[in-house]
Structures are given as C-alpha cells and as structure tokens.
C-alpha cells in the first residue's frame, strides 16, 4: 500500500527533544481525527522510542534521531524512529519487560512493552555499531456517526 501523506524530521538526541517529538507526532496524527485515548497511545509510544535512542543509542554523545510518519489510505498511521547509534546486540532480550541496561533505579525497562501494547504492530531492526530502527503502526478507526 502506498502512503497518502508523509512527514519526516530529524533532531539531536537531546532529552528536551522528547517533548518536541510528541508535539510533532500529535500534529500529524490529528489529521486522522483520533480519539483522545488513541492520541495518548501514539504520543506515549513515540516518547518511548525517542527516549530509547537518546539514552541507549548515544549514551556518551549527541547524535541524530530521525522520525518519519506516514498515513495510509486505510487510516493506518506508521511511525519509524531511527538512529545511527550503538545498536542492540540482542533484540529479544532488550524487548523483555523490565530488562534495562540503564540505571535500574530510575529506568523501568518498559519502553518496548509500552510500544507493543499501545500500538498495533511493532518491528525493531538493529545492527550493533550501525543503529536501530523501530517501526510501529496503529490503525485509527473512523469514528462512528
């Protein structure tokens, strides 16, 4: 299926840009007339993906995080968040709820679990030393009546 609308942005891996990414995706998602709950789901999932890139992909430096969002004719929203950071050695392990390589006192290890639960689909591709790409989709059902 071909996308009928598409936006792209890239930003530095600074934590202050987590809020920017949520605002940007909210603006694009608004075109699909989502419910308040659907919009909250999407903002949360994007926040998790972007935070992962900021914390884990570039732990000791500032890099670039890219976000691409597309809308398909069937009202599906697809969001890709990618980085050129250190990558994930073992994706299955990284996706386990409560697994974190971050500070265990402050990081819950729930990022991927949230993305999985709040979106319809989640795909993670990563190459150690090359970067990580997270693609997630959610169909925004047209409101009744």
């Amino acid at each position: 299926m071909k996308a009928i609308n598409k936006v792209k942005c890239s930003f530095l891996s600074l934590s202050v840009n987590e809020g920017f990414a949520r605002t940007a995706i909210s603006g694009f998602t608004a075109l699909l007339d989502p419910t308040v709950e659907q919009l909250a789901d999407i903002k949360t999932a994007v926040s998790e993906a972007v935070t992962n890139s900021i914390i884990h992909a570039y732990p000791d430096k500032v890099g670039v995080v890219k976000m691409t969002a597309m809308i398909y004719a069937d009202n599906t929203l697809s969001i890709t968040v990618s980085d050129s950071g250190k990558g994930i050695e073992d994706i299955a392990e990284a996706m386990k709820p409560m697994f974190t390589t971050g500070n265990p006192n402050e990081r819950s290890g729930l990022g991927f679990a949230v993305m999985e639960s709040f979106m319809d689909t989640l795909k993670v591709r990563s190459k150690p030393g090359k970067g990580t790409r997270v693609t997630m989709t959610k169909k925004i059902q047209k409101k009744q009546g």
Partner: protein
Amino acid sequence: MSQFTLHSAQDTLIACIKGEIDHHTAAGISSDLDAEILCRMPRLLVMDFSAVSFMDSSGIGLILGRRRLMETIQGEITVQAVPKDVARIIKLAGINQIVKNSEVKTV
C-alpha cells in the same frame, strides 16, 4: 522551577506533580523530590498525579525509585488521583497496588 508542589501534614508528605513526565523531566523531579524526602523524613509519601498531562515509562521509574527511597527510610508510598491515560501505563507496569484505588479518577 520545581515541577511539583508539596503539602505536608504530620508524617505525610504530599507531592502534587505537574505537567509532563518523561525522561527529560523525570530526572529533575526525582532529584528535587529526593532532597525534600531526605530533609523531611515522612512516614508516608503521597504522589498526586491529578495535574499530570502526560506520562511515559519514565514515570514508572520515577514512582519505583521513590518507593525504593521510602523503603530505605522505613516509610510507605501511595499514588493518587491518577488520570485515565496515566492509569493505563501504571497498570501495564503491574504496580496498580501502589495506587490508592478510592482516589483514582475515572474520567
């Protein structure tokens, strides 16, 4: 600028957290709140989420980290007035029991 306001009564410290909780804001909230906890040494910490407009899993880390701190000073923690969207992520994290059910907002 602190992202929460504090109220205290006897041994209870109530922290009303405002705005968005993400990885960016959680760091400041936790360090400021920890300083207050260690200074006041409450028996009960109540985290009030009624003015929280957004929370991702960083908020779970924020709650669990404060729970750990309260445990080290032999205190307890509850979370109250949780907006619906925030409640879903708390449920996903499996820490529902920390929320004082009677005060969960069901809007």
